[in-house]
């Protein structure tokens, strides 16, 4: 998505422009067999925050997350041992979102959306090699795409929403459920590509 497309989308869709903030809990599903052996299929899970700017149909945003997990080292014959291993992942991304918020004046309670972006992550894998902590760390860049549904909380509690608007300037609040697939650009080593379910609370100003 080029900047010119984004600007066009913002211009066409903006009944109003504003900001959006999201706080999310993320449950990823790992793909790399080495990571799955050590940390399990669901691997490290954690949270992330996202800040976006845009309008009714489109926004762009930046995202920062963090996830940790403890697992077990594996022997050469594939047996999972009692020796511990720890993984830390810090993902970042710049993304764009297109929302199908078709009804005017916030009357659409559920808004589908798709999202794509560019990003990467920093990772750190550590374990005890009797008595000595071993650490390997690195970074990956990659891209991602996903989609989901956003439930407008105003539809559930209109009075509360009105009070929030009056008291804090919040225009809309949402519960967001999203599925996302991430790919990392690499030719060897650990593959941090993953799919993830994401549950977020979002507010618009």
């Amino acid at each position, binding site marked *: 998505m080029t900047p010119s497309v984004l600007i066009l989308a913002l211009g066409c869709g903006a009944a109003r422009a504003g900001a959006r903030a999201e706080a999310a809990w993320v449950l990823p599903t790992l793909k*790399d067999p*080495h990571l799955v052996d050590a940390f399990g299929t669901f691997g490290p899970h954690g949270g992330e925050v996202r800040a976006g700017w845009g309008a009714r149909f489109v926004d762009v945003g930046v995202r920062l997350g963090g996830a940790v997990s403890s697992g077990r*080292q594996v022997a050469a014959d594939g047996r999972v*041992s009692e020796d511990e291993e720890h993984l830390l992942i810090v993902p*970042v991304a710049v993304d764009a979102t297109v929302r199908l918020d078709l009804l005017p004046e916030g009357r659409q309670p559920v808004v589908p959306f798709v999202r794509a972006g560019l990003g990467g992550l920093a990772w750190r894998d550590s374990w005890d090699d*009797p008595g000595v902590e071993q650490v*390997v760390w*690195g970074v*990956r860049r990659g891209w991602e795409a996903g989609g989901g549904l956003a439930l407008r909380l105003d539809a559930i509690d209109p009075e509360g929403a009105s009070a929030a608007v009056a008291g804090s300037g919040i225009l809309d609040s949402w519960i967001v459920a999203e599925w996302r697939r991430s790919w990392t650009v690499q030719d060897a080593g*650990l593959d941090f590509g993953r799919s993830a379910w994401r549950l977020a609370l979002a507010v618009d100003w």
Partner: protein
Amino acid sequence: MRPPRPPYLAWGVWAALAGWVPRAHGGTPPDREVARWELGTEVSDVAWSDTGRWLVALESGGAAVHVVDGWTWQDTVVAVCADPSGVAIDDEDGGAIIAVGCADGTVARVDVAPDGTATRGDSWRGGVSGSVVAVAWTDTQLLAVARPASGSAQVHAWGRTDGAPVTSGYPSTLSSSSVAGTAVAGSMLFVVHGSDLVSKVDLRTGAASRTRENLGSRDFVDAWAWNAGTVYLADSGGSLCVLNAGGNDLAILRDDVAPSVNAVVGEPEEGWMLLATDSDVRVLAFSGGPGEQVGVLAGVEGVHALASHGAYAVGGATGGTLSVLTSLPWVTLEPLEEGVRDVGDTVPLAFTVDRGGRWRVRTGGTPEDPGPIAAEGRAEAGVSVPVELAVDDTFVEGVNLVWVEADGDAGTGRAAVKVQVDRAPPAVRLPADGVGFGDGRVVVRVEAPDVADLARITLYLSTVPFVASDWPAGGPTPDVPGGLSPVVREARPGEDLVFEVDGLTNDVSVHVGLRATDAGGREGPLSTVRVTTPAATLGAAARAGDPGSQCGAVGSGRDGGALTLLALAAMLGRRRGVRVLGRGVPPPATPPGGGA
């Protein structure tokens, strides 16, 4: 003047003539003295706990209480205070709390543990003037009636749970200085003062009032409250009187019982009432009130204190004896040889019954929830019955009660004897996933057997295969081929334990087994033996051949240099690995042996 006799009494006379006496619930009143114990010089008060498990006799001559286990009929003596007067007992978590009035104005406390151990506790004290002459328990309070050096008697109260003096409404001042007896029913305390004077105290407020009616020439010495509205009074002048508490009315029920009535007690559920005289104990039927006299327990002399529970009553006499009165067969168990038994041992029981009939021996349980029958038969009165009782799996670790029950016309009498059993702990359960490996090490996770006297668990390791049957005791140690130094851990029942043994050689299989040992040093069987093989282990990055980014060169060939800051953020999050050792596990008592 004798009051009009209620119609049911007349009906009772006719029924008695026909050979049948009406009773409220079909119980048979005590018909004999089945046991008499010489406790000392004077038993001045007795009390029985509500559950019937414990009874206490105050031996005022010896300044001690005798705590009798109502199941085994064994007693424990605890010294209390000088010149004690009045005793009360209440159940407490399988044991009991005993309160004894003392001349120094305190109330001595004796705690009885469920196993019968009785110990002197801290006295209740505070604000009492004079000597405490009577005590009583309610659900929430301990009550003490004190007789000051001058002035009227006072009722003091302490909270049941916190032991703190109750100040709202207390002390409650009575209308006389003398105190001859007390009785509690509902929220009312009744105090007999001698003569014809009775006080009642509303325990909710501490407000005291006295009887209005005059029954001259009476001398009340004891009271038994049937309920909050009706209190029966023993008159040392020889009559049985009743106080209608609601109307503060006194009436003479029977004025021809004996030259003197010293104590009164009743069991309405069983349908009888007892009156103690100087020379015997009179038995009255009780159905909505005292009925005809249905028996005389001759020879039970000098009883001045009565207490009862169920089919049993006890009488404390001024001569220092405590008599047990009942209509049930009485079982006398001969003392067991001291010792601790294990499964497979035999217990040589011997007992006699005072009335012939069928008997049963049960292991464990209570009178309300009896255990399984281990032996049964028929006994002749007074003839010793030997029973060889095998200790089997129905016996539990620790103290076991073995009951002997004897059937009679009036019901089943029983007594119990304590059998101490020390069983070897069971095998430690070692599941297949309880054994793991690491780089040069073995990790074993187990749950300790839930055995009360568990002391420790020993982990045995060997590079040579072995099975549990190879080691009836102990296990492979360094003095046998392949044996490694055992690891010993103190353990609590049911505790999760983790054994970690380092310094082992990778790729050499290690066989492991565990054994539990109890506090007495008795070993359980060896667990299932499992095998694991330590091996070199690798982190995910190492197995994937991922060297990561080089120090100071985060932007390696496939990484974007713009993400250097993220890598630094990751470095800030570095943390040390944590070994999970389980709940409250102390370090190994014995260092692990060297690797094979």
